């Protein structure tokens, strides 16, 4: 291609300026959206997913902790009831033991979490059980979002843990029997046994929920790793940056020398005379 001398000079200036700009871009990479929209879109959507999965992980962690605490409490319920039944079967029924068991269970039923919120009040914030074991909470359970399409109950209401299982009504029957006859009637013992079974079932349900959250969390973590890889794929690699910069610097020096030779060396005019 034929070039005018004016264009040769202009091109020289443009190429030098272009290399300077590229060196600057290596040190201060421009916004991906301007230079590579497809890469930006991938990075944006991936980092958006990472942020969302991180939130789900926090939710899952919170639900996990809450359910573990609930499970521990329910385990105590189960153990207290089992111990009471063992004691009732092994020796003459003791009223104090039965009353102590009820007090222990009432204390568990009114346990508050680290935020000071009752664990077994449903969605109510008031103390759920009175001295007699009457429930003033509700049956609502706190659902937590742990993936885009999955919400899990992260609490167990007092209704389900104590009312539906008949824990306090069974204890009241036992206490009433001991107070009046000194013995525990078969129906009362059966009610206690049923309460133990149902309480165990609720505890198992809490364990299953914890397992479900753990499994989902593992899936989320794997997915998050994939998205993180995608999101950081286009981030500048410092080693590559230094290498590219050195390469461009060499190219820049070569270009300057090349133009110095082109424009400072003798022109054809020098050979004419």
């Amino acid at each position, binding site marked *: 291609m034929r070039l*005018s001398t*004016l*264009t*040769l000079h202009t091109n020289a200036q443009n190429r030098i300026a272009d290399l300077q700009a590229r060196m600057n871009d290596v040190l201060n990479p421009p916004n991906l959206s301007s230079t590579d929209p497809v890469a930006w879109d991938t990075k944006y*959507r991936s980092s*958006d997913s990472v942020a969302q999965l991180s939130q*789900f992980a926090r*939710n899952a962690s919170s639900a996990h902790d809450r359910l573990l605490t609930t499970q521990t409490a329910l385990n105590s319920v189960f153990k207290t009831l089992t111990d009471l039944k063992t004691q009732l079967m092994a020796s003459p029924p003791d009223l104090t033991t039965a009353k102590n068991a009820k007090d222990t269970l009432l204390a568990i039923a009114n346990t508050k979490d680290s935020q000071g919120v009752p664990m077994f009040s449903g*969605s109510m914030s008031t103390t759920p059980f009175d001295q007699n074991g009457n429930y003033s909470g509700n049956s609502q359970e706190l*659902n937590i979002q742990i993936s885009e399409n999955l919400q899990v109950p992260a609490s167990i209401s007092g209704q389900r843990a104590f009312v539906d299982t008949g824990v306090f009504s069974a204890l009241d029957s036992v206490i009433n029997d001991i107070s009046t006859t000194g013995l525990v009637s078969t129906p009362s013992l059966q009610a206690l046994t049923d309460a133990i079974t149902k309480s165990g079932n609720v505890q198992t349900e809490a364990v299953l929920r914890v397992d479900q959250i753990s499994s989902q969390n593992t899936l989320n973590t794997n997915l998050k790793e994939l998205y993180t890889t995608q999101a950081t794929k286009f981030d500048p690699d410092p080693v590559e940056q230094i290498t590219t910069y050195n390469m461009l610097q060499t190219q820049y020096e070569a270009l300057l020398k090349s133009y110095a030779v082109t424009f400072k060396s003798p022109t054809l005019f020098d050979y004419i005379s």
Partner: protein
Amino acid sequence: MSGALDIGLSGIRAAQYALDVTGHNIANASTPGFNKLLVEFKDQPFPPIGGVTASSRPSSSAFNQNQALTNISTGAYYDKMATETKPVTDMLSNDTFLNAIRDFANSIQDLADNPTSMVARETVVAKANTMGDSFNTIGNFLQQAKQNISQASNLVQQEITTQMQVLKDFNEHPSSNTSQVNQALYKLAELTGVRYSVNSNGTYDIQTFSGGQTKALQDMQSLLNQVDGKVKTAFDQFQNTFNQVHAQGVDLNGNQAQVFFTNGKVSVTPDQIGAADISALGVANSQNNVNALKLAPDSTLRNSLANIVTDLAGSLNNSSMLGKTYSDAGNKFIADNGVNLDEEAVNLVKFRQMYEANAQVIKTQDEMFQTLINIRA
């Protein structure tokens, strides 16, 4: 006998003329808009006369130059589009802005996790305001960008008037000195679409039409309006949906929740956020988080914005590429028709040799005359 003398003389004259043209080209090597002159030799019929005449013409024709003007104009259009689109794309794809939307979504999740927590509620309000401010910032930025485009359009119009005046001045006193006209035409082509024809009296007929930076600025104004509209629509839809769901909820005091966003600003206090559903009506400090889970924004807003950015960025890349292609084509014409000093150096040698050779013809003829004179003597 005198034929060879005349022929040699015509060669010398032609070579002298060619050297003059070459000198003129060399002198104008750095003159903007200068199209080099080409020497054209034409042989004289032989016999009876013989010899050569030389003339010159500009290296480019009006047809070619009009083609180049179209390329320059198209290149300037795309270059301007790319230059003006880039800051808008960068602004919309800014991490701070997009993070504000994510942070708000996450704060709602945290609220659902702990619906009675005042810290969580205050965070929701703070993040919602930050997000609303971000959208206002974008709106203000686009508004400012539109004003800048209007100002730029005025400047471009002023520059068009200036260049048209150059051409008008030339037409009042037409001459063969067209470098200034070419320069004005090249500049005009960057500013708007332009084509020309030369009249027999040397004046230029100039036609301008939509193109160049003028059209780019008009299209950019329309693009900014579209982007502004899309961003506003996306946020308004988000606000309306959020407000509708929120109003179905119950706040921490057990009251029916109110409108959450008013013109991008949070219009409720932290305790008035409707995290609970209607079953908690009349119940203070409810742990009910059913409405908070419904409020948690999905990715619709973020995806809408990502789509706007991706469309803009695609258009930006396209404009950059086309701008370079057309500008290169326009510049190639200027490069082809400008002066190359090496080429002119070769011409100098060539025409000097032509001059010397023709001088040699005259010298030989002169020697032959001398021979005849000497015979007489």
